[in-house]
């Protein structure tokens, strides 16, 4: 299958560029609804990258949770605050350019750091299965798992309590 690798690489790079492009559109487009659609593309692209990184379960979770649930919520919110989506109103504030400059500065620091760092990569990349993941969740990480489920429950109740209209 080694000869198949370049093909995979090409697809991966394409996906990466799609994700970057969609993300840029997401943060810069004036129409928030379209931004949400492009966010969906970004998330789907990230899910695709998970597949290529042999994290199938995470990829499925990404689609199920991010695309299926969070995106639905976001679009719901966009629709419920529909009056705020007037195209005539500026969607970005006045610190666009300073922000861009500062972020350029940050990247100018981070990218050389990444390039200079001595990464000790594995000879053979390893992957795991959903079964192993389940064992880890129920064994080693059972406490964080329980806490996260509690947090989720609290968030659920909190969201309902916050969003309900006053009688």
């Amino acid at each position: 299958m080694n000869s198949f690798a370049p093909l995979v690489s090409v697809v991966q790079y394409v996906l990466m560029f799609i994700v970057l492009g969609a993300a840029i559109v997401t943060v810069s487009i004036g129409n928030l609804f379209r931004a949400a659609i492009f966010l969906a593309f970004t998330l789907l692209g990230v899910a695709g990258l998970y597949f290529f990184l042999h994290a199938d379960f995470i990829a499925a979770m990404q689609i199920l949770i991010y695309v299926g649930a969070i995106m639905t919520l976001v679009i719901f919110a966009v629709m419920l605050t529909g009056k705020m989506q007037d195209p005539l109103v500026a969607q970005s504030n006045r610190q666009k350019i300073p922000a861009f400059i500062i972020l350029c500065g940050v990247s100018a620091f981070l990218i050389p750091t990444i390039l200079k760092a001595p990464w000790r990569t594995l000879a053979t990349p390893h992957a795991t299965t959903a079964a192993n993941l389940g064992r880890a969740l129920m064994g080693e990480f059972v406490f964080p798992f329980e806490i996260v489920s509690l947090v989720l429950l609290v968030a659920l109740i909190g969201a309902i309590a916050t969003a309900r209209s006053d009688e």
Partner: protein
Amino acid sequence: MMSINHFLIFTTLLFLIGLYGALSRRNMIGILMSIEIMLNAVNLNFIFFSRFLDVPAETAQVFAIFVIVLAAATAAVGLAIVLQIYRNQKTIYTDEIDLLKW
């Protein structure tokens, strides 16, 4: 086999794009979306390290799952707050919500 540097630069850029969105968006929903992008960039790094670095694969993926779950919680509570603010203030532009400013 893609370059480790390329992938890390990709995730960095993705993160910074999200950060840029969080800095420049006026709309609270837009900010939330930008934050989701940043979280995704972080998650990609987790998964990438789980595959190519000398760490147990499960650990990184478990953390990625936690991040996703917490992102879901953030989105739920955050959007509920947005709706409530919209109901009370009739705006979701952060620079117009200045109730606590003297």
